[in-house]
């Protein structure tokens, strides 16, 4: 089957199988699992993943072809996105064969849901400053700590958790990666409301949770290099999804906004032109990155510029839209009230604007690094988190 045929077949499958319409929230997870199993059985989950562990063993070309076709559909796979985009690839890359055999197929088939437990209240941009401890106890590790910003934790069966195993080492050198059973009674998941009042994230409290050593990923104290693998996959999956697809439904985007405002006012019109210019500039940049990727030139750190620009555009347009619409836009029911409440999220999730600028400066422009004060200090002697 050549690629065009593959693409056609995928499209046909999607047309026939993607569920349309909504169902009650309570049924969302079982329905999503049902769909995922069908997707897997049809050969469209883990397309480029190794055959040996449950993938299809095809190439990036098929993976991309399917993703492109799928763009026109709304697949109910959100709850699996962490597993598929980050924790799964990490286990494929860095797990033992036993771990791959145990975890990958159920993940691809949607039988088990995954979350990722890296960030902590005291370790956001600086993930390696985390304080969750893992202490060895025979053939187990005992974990204590608190994680935050954990998507889908409330549904998750497994979590990929980064913990500190040695405080005498500098901060990057005393970390180890584990797989934690989210159903263990010592794991407490609490919804975390964001500033718009919605609970899209969770806090996860881990209280004396034992983890068998065979659920350790990578070597002891080598967890940072495993985390880098995960974060690399995160970045790839974010920059793939970064696009502008959310723009279609965004009430602050030009398409929606122009219907809400008085375009007979030349000043309003010029503001909309400014919005058009910025939106098109980023849209075309994303398209160019996509074309380059297709041609085999991978954007790497340049994707951080697209992320930075998207964060700025999101903030700019929600701010502009509320100003153009005026007082009405601040009524809770108005779509723009939600847009302005959500806008900062894009600048804070997946790396702040400052972190993006550092990445662009260091890795794209090759500028000299900031002097680091935290590289060779034992973790226990280091300032971390929030302190006077």
């Amino acid at each position, binding site marked *: 089957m050549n690629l065009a045929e593959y693409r056609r077949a995928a499209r046909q499958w999607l047309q026939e199988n993607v569920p349309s319409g909504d169902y009650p929230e309570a049924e969302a997870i079982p329905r999503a699992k049902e769909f995922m199993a069908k997707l897997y059985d049809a050969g469209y989950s883990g397309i480029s993943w190794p055959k040996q562990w449950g993938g299809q063993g095809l190439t990036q070309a098929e993976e991309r072809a399917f993703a492109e076709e799928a763009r026109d559909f709304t697949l109910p796979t959100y709850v699996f996105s962490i597993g598929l985009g980050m924790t799964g690839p990490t286990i494929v890359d860095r797990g033992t064969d036993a771990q791959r055999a145990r975890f990958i197929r159920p993940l691809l088939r949607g039988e088990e849901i995954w979350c990722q437990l890296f960030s902590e209240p005291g370790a956001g941009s600086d993930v390696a*400053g985390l304080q969750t401890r893992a202490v060895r106890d025979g053939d187990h590790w005992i974990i204590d700590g608190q994680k935050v910003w954990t998507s889908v934790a409330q549904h998750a069966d497994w979590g990929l958790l980064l913990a500190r195993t040695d405080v005498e080492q500098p901060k990057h050198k005393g970390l180890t990666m584990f797989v934690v059973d989210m159903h263990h009674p010592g794991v407490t998941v609490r919804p975390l409301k964001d500033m718009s009042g919605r609970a899209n994230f969770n806090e996860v409290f881990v209280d004396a949770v034992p983890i068998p050593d065979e659920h350790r990923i990578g070597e002891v104290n080598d967890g940072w290099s495993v985390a880098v693998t995960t974060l690399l996959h995160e970045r790839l999956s974010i920059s793939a999804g970064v696009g502008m697809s959310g723009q279609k439904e965004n009430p602050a985007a030009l398409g929606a906004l122009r219907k809400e405002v008085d375009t007979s006012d030349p*000043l309003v019109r010029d503001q909309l032109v400014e919005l058009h210019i910025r939106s098109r500039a980023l849209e075309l940049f994303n398209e160019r990155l996509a074309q380059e990727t297709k041609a085999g030139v991978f954007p790497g750190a340049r994707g951080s510029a697209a992320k930075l620009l998207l964060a700025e555009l999101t903030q700019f347009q929600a701010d502009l839209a509320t100003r153009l619409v005026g007082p009405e836009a601040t009524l809770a029911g108005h779509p723009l009230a939600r847009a302005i*409440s959500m806008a900062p999220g894009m600048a*804070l999730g997946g790396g702040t604007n*400052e972190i993006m600028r550092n990445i662009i400066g260091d890795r794209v422009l090759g500028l000299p690094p900031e002097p680091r*004060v*935290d590289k060779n200090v034992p973790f226990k002697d280091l300032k971390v988190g*929030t302190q*006077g």
Partner: protein
Amino acid sequence: MKLVLSTEQQELRAAVRAFLSAASPVSKARDGYDPQVYARLGGELGLSGLIVPEEYGGAGAGLTELAVALEETGAALLPGPFLATAFAAITLSGVPDKELLAGIAEGRIAATVHASEVAYDGATATGRLGQVLSGMEADVLIVPAGADDGPVLLAVELAGPGVSRSPLETLDITRGQAEVVLAGAPARLLGPVPETGVFERMCVALAAEQLGVMRAALDAIVAYAKIRVAFGRYIGSYQGVKHKLADMHAKLEQAESIVRYAAWAADESPADLPEAAALAQAYVGRACFEVARDHLLLHGGIGYTWEHDAHLFYKRAKADEVLLGPPRLHRARLAELLEL
């Protein structure tokens, strides 16, 4: 032109600040209107009657003093009808009504205003008013109505007959609005709508609140930048943070200068007031939101959480920015005044 506070004004500021930091700190802002705090604000501090003329039992102070008070209530994100009542007191300065002014001065009456005209038959008012600021907490609404000799101002008891009001959920969870429906509600005629100065003074009052919001937001993120560590250093030591905070400080300095100027103009130089008021809304409204936004963003992830107070400043700043109309109106007014 006077842009610095007198000793008395500084004392007023210190008193209001001390009171609010004990009685209504930002951490209480999301609990909503606390009538007890208001009673003390009006009583102990006499803030409700600050700009009410002495003959009606007020302190007879000017916009300069009101601005000092509003800066502090803004910094505390004080919930409830303080700004609305200030708007009402400003409006009443053009149609001095003994009963209302005395009630406001005593702290007995919370009031609000609305700009849309209602129908008036000589005794009752009828109309539907959206987004009445603090409309659920206010006792009295001051609202214009058309009349044969030009528009007049009416006072309507909001708890009285013929009035139904329903709360509106808004972006700013620290201060509500209401939809008010008047269906033959008894209305008292206050007098003709004053020709000038009312809207301008409201602009200045709002700018003073905005100055307080931006100052408190900047203070909060500066304090956080001194205790939050990333990569082994306090985040305030990174130029990426420090330089942004410096720019925010520069905006604050300009905003304060404009608010002092506009309040001075309101009190001492009516000819300068229209330009000063439009300038105040055009500059301070924008600067306030920008500072509140950047203060939230610089907090990192924690600033995005519901539990943290950062979003309260961000949302108040955005609500205030458009409270007296889309910002371009103030800019258009400036263009007119400059005869551009």
